């Protein structure tokens, strides 16, 4: 990007700034969810917004996820741009019908007559000792559904730019935020900017192996890349940023260049995000790969509460490092 004024913001601040700027720009944008107003969400992501925009645009709801998501769909069909807040990604289980049978299909079923410009913000990620019902990363389900777009920002910069794109998009967009990243800082330009969907970002250039990582796993991949550097392995870290649309070209080209790839995602590994991306790479870079594409996701168990057990279920820098080292035969 060009030379612009930049300052450090946390992921939470970046999200809040994107929402606030879009709400100032467009009166049809509003926020609806549990404890979003005075409380500013339990993660304090929206702190201060109700003071600026008032209770008519930052709206506390009862604990009725299917109900207020459905209200979001109807509001989006009739001229508004709702931003629905689902506190924990685990609660997506409650709104799958509104998202999948309603929001995702309205445009197509009506032959293009109606559209649903709705953003659904929710969270992902374990390791907060929140146990099996508050720690899941369910992005694979939604990436599977035609009619939805799925965004997984890994930095404050990406979060702000992608969220603005999501709000301006005329389709239902599911926006996943990693709970562990809310306090993580990163550079964010002062100027208005957006980031297009379907464009992967190379977070680190490298020659020997490609580490494809989403959301929370980007930091893990970068950490592993540092460790690999020390043993002389140059790792490239590629972040798809959106799993739908998916920038297959960039992923494949990186793997063709390095001839090795590991795919990382915090969702359950089986039938997860890593399966699609690994299979895209295995096909697209078939004649260039020196080794099978390796997948690393969450262990196939409900996420346990006990710290030593929970830690064993999530991909770690060390695990990625070891896998990469083995693939590169060091």
């Amino acid at each position, binding site marked *: 990007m060009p030379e612009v004024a930049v300052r450090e913001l946390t992921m939470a601040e970046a999200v809040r700034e994107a929402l606030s700027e879009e709400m100032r720009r467009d009166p049809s944008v509003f926020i609806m969810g549990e404890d979003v107003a005075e409380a500013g969400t339990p993660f304090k992501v929206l702190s201060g917004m109700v003071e600026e925009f008032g209770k*008519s645009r930052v709206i506390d709801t009862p604990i009725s996820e299917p*109900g207020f998501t459905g209200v979001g769909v109807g509001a989006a069909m009739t*001229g508004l741009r709702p931003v629905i807040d689902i506190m924990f990604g685990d609660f997506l289980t409650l709104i799958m019908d509104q998202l999948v049978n*309603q929001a995702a299909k309205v445009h197509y079923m009506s032959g293009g007559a109606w559209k649903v410009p709705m953003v659904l913000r929710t969270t992902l990620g374990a390791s907060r000792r929140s146990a099996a019902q508050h720690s899941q990363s369910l992005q694979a389900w939604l990436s599977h559904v035609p009619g939805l777009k799925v965004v997984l920002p890994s930095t404050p910069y990406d979060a702000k730019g992608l969220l603005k794109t999501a709000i301006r998009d005329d389709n239902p967009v599911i926006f996943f935020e990693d709970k562990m990243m809310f306090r993580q800082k990163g550079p964010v330009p002062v100027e208005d900017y957006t980031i297009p969907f379907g464009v992967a970002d190379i977070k680190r250039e490298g020659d020997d192996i490609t580490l494809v990582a989403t959301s929370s796993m980007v930091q893990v991949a970068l950490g592993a890349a540092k460790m690999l550097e020390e043993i002389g392995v140059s790792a490239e870290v590629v972040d798809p940023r959106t799993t739908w649309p998916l920038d297959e070209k960039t992923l494949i080209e990186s793997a063709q260049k390095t001839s090795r790839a590991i795919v990382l995602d915090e969702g359950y590994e089986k039938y997860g995000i890593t399966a699609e991306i690994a299979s895209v790479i295995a096909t697209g870079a078939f004649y260039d790969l020196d080794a099978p594409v390796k997948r690393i996701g969450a262990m196939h168990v409900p996420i346990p509460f006990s710290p030593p057990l929970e830690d064993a279920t999530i991909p770690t820098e060390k695990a990625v490092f070891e896998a990469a080292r083995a693939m590169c035969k060091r």
Partner: protein
Amino acid sequence: MTTESKQSAAIAGSGSELTLRMYSNMQRIRLFEEQVNQLYTRAVMPGLAHLYIGEEAVAVGICEALRRDDYITSTHRGHGHCLAKGASPDRMFAELLGKEAGYCKGKGGSMHIADPASGNLGANAIVGGSAGIATGAAFSAKYRGTKQVAVCFFGEGALGQGLLYEVMNLARLWNLPVIYVCENNMYNEYTHFSETTAGEILARPAAFGIPSESVDGQDIRAVHTAASRMVERAREGNGPSFLLANTYRYHGHHVGDVSREYYRAKQEETEWRAMRDPIQVLTEWLLKEKIADQSQLDEIVAKAKTEIDAAVAFALQSPFPAVDKVGEDVYA
């Protein structure tokens, strides 16, 4: 247009253009549905359809109390709602046959007809699935200050879906201009509603502080009067209401449901047809009140028949969408 709905409310129950228009629209729905049944038995229509015959007074009585820019959400049994709100039969038949000229370019079919021009947010094949959408449209109308009203049509089977209670709570809390219309035709598919519904239906909206009424769904003047009251209430900013319309479907759950004795008695069907037919009830009233004589009514039916026949012909001769259209309209 507000005036129209005000007026219709005012003159409901007295003779009028409105009453004749309601007569005409009930006839149009019935003729439409009879053609649908034909198209199915002649194996010209893909899939199945759920006929509205017997319930015409509910959709027409309510939609005649609405402005064209008011919203409705509809159900799998939605042809009546769609016509009553102002869609035209030709593009509807085209949709039912999966043709390019259909309201959804053939992509939706019978269970998903939608029409922005007449405020129809769409039929829905998920029972109760549109309760959130209708409530959201009402939220939007209030947010935008347009004084539009949203009507959520659903069968009594949808009382089983928790979503309905979640959104009724929201509608009351936020005072939204939405009317929940429960079309109680007494059957959830093949099961009598008494086996699936505990307590008193009207106590359910009441529990959320929503004013509710029940009405004879076969008496269109009663339906229209009750609906007009509720529409006014919503438009004036006084929030949601719930209307329970007691009615009956003459045909099977869907066009393929022909031997029904195992779940309901033939006699029950014949009694409703003979004694509670909404078109007959209005006809008798129109004649008694001398608002129209038989020849005028016959003329209305003849006009309707011509329109419906032409619509079927249009749909039959119009082409299927080109296969390469399949990938369009997934994303806006």
